[in-house]
Every structure is written in structure tokens, then in C-alpha cells.
């Protein structure tokens, strides 16, 4: 069994596969990350042949691990890296109970966190990746971790999953091409290329931040920014949280505290320069 042990923020992973190629890609993407503390991985993800013979004949991979989804669709082996990333996401979403998870990205400046959330395709990942190259520290791309005890955001700087047009956009802003993983074409989500967060994001992955602002960017048509009421913010964040219900009362208390202390707003944007400008203006007023 080919295996990778890696720690991302507070979570230790053990990722395994019967195949070498996706594991080599994963190892490349997580170069420079630490190993789990004391060698203990709390989350295990595996990508395996769907049937034993599928290892050799038109190979497909299935996502497995501590937790599995009964209807997880097997993927082509050439998308094995994506399958490994999805397997890691699945283990986090279902397996961990220490943090409230928000389906969001986050960046930090001066000890305060900006949370970017919204539907898939809203551009939150691209915006967070861009901010991470322009004076902010990237804290998270897929899941934002909120500590129920302190209300702080904990960093979870996984490789950023860039999709379609944002792949070329980010190439303009990242000087080191070695930070990009392989281009995965024609996946179920279109073209995907992973980007390793910069050295600062990895080195400071154990530094939490105080949540300061929640933004809902929406890529498409530029619209005037509008504030979001706290009750609506609560509802939107629960809808985007994979483990709000599992956390029960702790999740409720954590989210109540967040919306009582952190304002929310939404805006539409047509190009990334305008979005960066708007984020800067929001931040100046926060």
C-alpha cells in the first residue's frame, strides 16, 4: 500500500492507494507540509480499485476511508489525484467533530480572518487564492474551521482546487510554476488544477485568527454590495456547513456567537480586479 502521512492545520491524514501515480501527485502537492504530530493520523482516506481487476483493466478509483458514501461515483484513474483530494474532504466533512466546518475559504491579515463563502462557482476559491498572493495569508480553501471553545478560525491550508478559467488567471499571479499540480482535464467538474499554498500559509498553519467579516462573492454581473442580516447570515452558514447538525448544540452556540460578532455582506463582480478592490474597501471599514 502506497501511503502519505501529512498534517494540514490541526488534522492529520493518512492517505493510501493501490496505485502509485495519484500518490506521487499528492506527495508532490503536499511537499513541505509537516507529518502528523507523533505520527498519529486522525483521518484515513483511501482510493482503491472499484473491483480487483480494475487495477489493470480500464482502471477506476473508488473513494474509501473511515467514512464512505454509498453512492460515491467511481472515477477514472487519470483523475486519481482529484479522487484523493475528495476522499480527504469526505473524511473531514463526516469524520471530525472538534471544529464547526463552514464550506468556505478564508484569508487572514493582522490576526483577523476574512471568510469567503457562497455556492460552487461563486469564485470564492479563486478570490482567496488571489488574496493569498497579494498580502493576505491563505487559511483555507474548502473548509473553514471554527473552534467552538474560542470562536477562532483555525487554518486548514489544503491545496487549492482551481477550476476552468481560474487556472489561467492564477498562473498570472503565481511566480513559481512548481506550486501547481498536474492539469486534470474533463473531470466531472471540468478542468481542475491544484495549487499548493505559498510557504507563508504552510509555515503559519498553526496560527488561528479572530473572525472579522463574512463575504458572499458572486462571480458574474457586478452588483452593489449589500449587507446581510444576522439571522439570514446564520441560515446561509448552516446551509453551507457539512457538520452543523452533527455538532448539535455546540454547533448552534458556535454559529450564534459568530453571527453576533461578525458582519456579513454580498456582492457580484465581473472581474477579479474589481473583486479585489471591493474586498479591500470592505476590509478598510471592518
Amino acid at each position: 500500500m502506497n501511503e502519505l502521512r501529512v498534517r494540514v492545520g490541526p488534522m492529520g491524514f493518512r492517505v493510501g492507494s493501490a496505485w502509485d501515480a495519484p500518490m506521487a501527485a499528492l506527495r508532490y502537492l503536499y511537499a513541505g507540509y509537516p507529518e502528523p504530530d507523533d505520527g498519529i493520523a486522525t483521518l484515513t482516506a483511501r482510493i482503491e480499485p472499484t473491483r480487483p481487476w480494475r487495477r489493470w483493466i480500464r482502471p477506476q478509483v473508488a473513494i474509501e476511508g473511515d467514512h464512505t458514501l454509498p453512492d460515491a461515483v467511481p472515477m477514472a484513474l487519470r483523475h486519481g489525484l482529484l479522487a484523493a483530494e475528495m476522499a480527504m474532504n469526505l473524511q473531514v466533512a463526516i469524520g471530525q467533530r472538534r471544529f464547526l466546518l463552514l464550506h468556505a475559504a478564508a484569508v487572514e491579515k493582522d490576526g483577523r480572518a476574512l471568510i469567503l463563502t457562497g455556492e460552487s462557482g461563486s469564485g470564492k476559491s479563486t478570490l482567496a487564492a488571489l488574496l493569498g498572493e497579494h498580502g493576505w495569508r491563505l487559511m483555507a480553501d474548502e473548509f473553514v474551521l471554527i473552534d467552538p471553545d474560542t470562536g477562532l478560525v483555525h487554518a486548514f491550508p489544503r491545496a487549492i482546487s482551481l477550476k476552468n478559467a481560474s487556472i489561467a488567471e492564477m498562473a498570472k499571479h503565481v511566480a513559481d510554476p512548481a506550486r501547481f499540480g498536474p492539469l486534470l482535464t474533463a473531470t466531472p467538474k471540468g478542468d481542475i488544477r491544484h495549487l499548493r499554498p505559498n510557504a507563508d500559509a504552510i509555515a503559519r498553519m498553526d496560527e488561528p485568527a479572530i473572525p472579522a467579516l463574512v463575504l458572499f462573492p458572486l462571480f458574474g454581473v457586478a452588483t452593489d454590495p449589500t449587507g446581510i442580516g444576522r439571522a439570514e447570515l446564520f441560515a446561509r452558514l448552516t446551509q453551507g456547513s457539512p457538520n452543523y447538525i452533527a455538532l448539535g448544540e455546540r454547533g448552534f452556540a458556535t454559529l450564534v456567537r459568530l453571527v453576533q460578532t461578525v458582519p456579513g455582506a454580498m456582492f457580484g463582480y465581473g472581474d477579479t480586479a474589481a473583486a479585489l478592490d471591493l474586498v479591500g474597501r470592505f476590509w478598510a471599514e471592518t
Partner: protein
Amino acid sequence: MTAPVLKNPVFHAEAQDANPVAEIDGIMLLFHRRSGETHFLASPLPEMLALLAEHPCNADALAERLARQLDVPCDDEARIVVAARLEELRGAGLVWTA
């Protein structure tokens, strides 16, 4: 065998401190411990729950108590609204009939 349908049933609600609540933008967020559900309750639902927690009663009596508290007339419209909201609360498991 089906349960008998009670005429003019008495509604009950849990004590006010039975579940964690938060008042946000005039809406009561209530985490229902029994079901694990989070409810968004706009007026007059929090007031209805408080009155029933204090003293269980039937729908008409609740309409009268609520109208008195909110200083509005207790007419047919008030009674219809209270009866409809009570059914919603019952569906959510926040009130029950004995």
C-alpha cells in the same frame, strides 16, 4: 385503531429554559434539544411558546391571552392565525397536545 381526535385540545410547550435560544434581528433562533433541529421563530411564535410554557391551554384561550399581551383585539382573524401557527408548532414538535 386510530387515536381519538380531541375537541379543543390543550396545548403544552417546554419550559422556557429547556432549549438554548438566541434573539437575532428580532427573530428567535431556538435549538430544539429533543430533535436537534434549529428553528427560526418570528413573532408571535416566541410569545405563544412562552404563554404555553407558563400555562398550557387550548387554542381559543391562547388567542385571548396573546391578544391581551400584544394589546390587539381577539377577533376571528386572531383565532385563525393562532390556530394555524399552533399547527405549525405542533408539526415542528415544539408544542404538543396531551
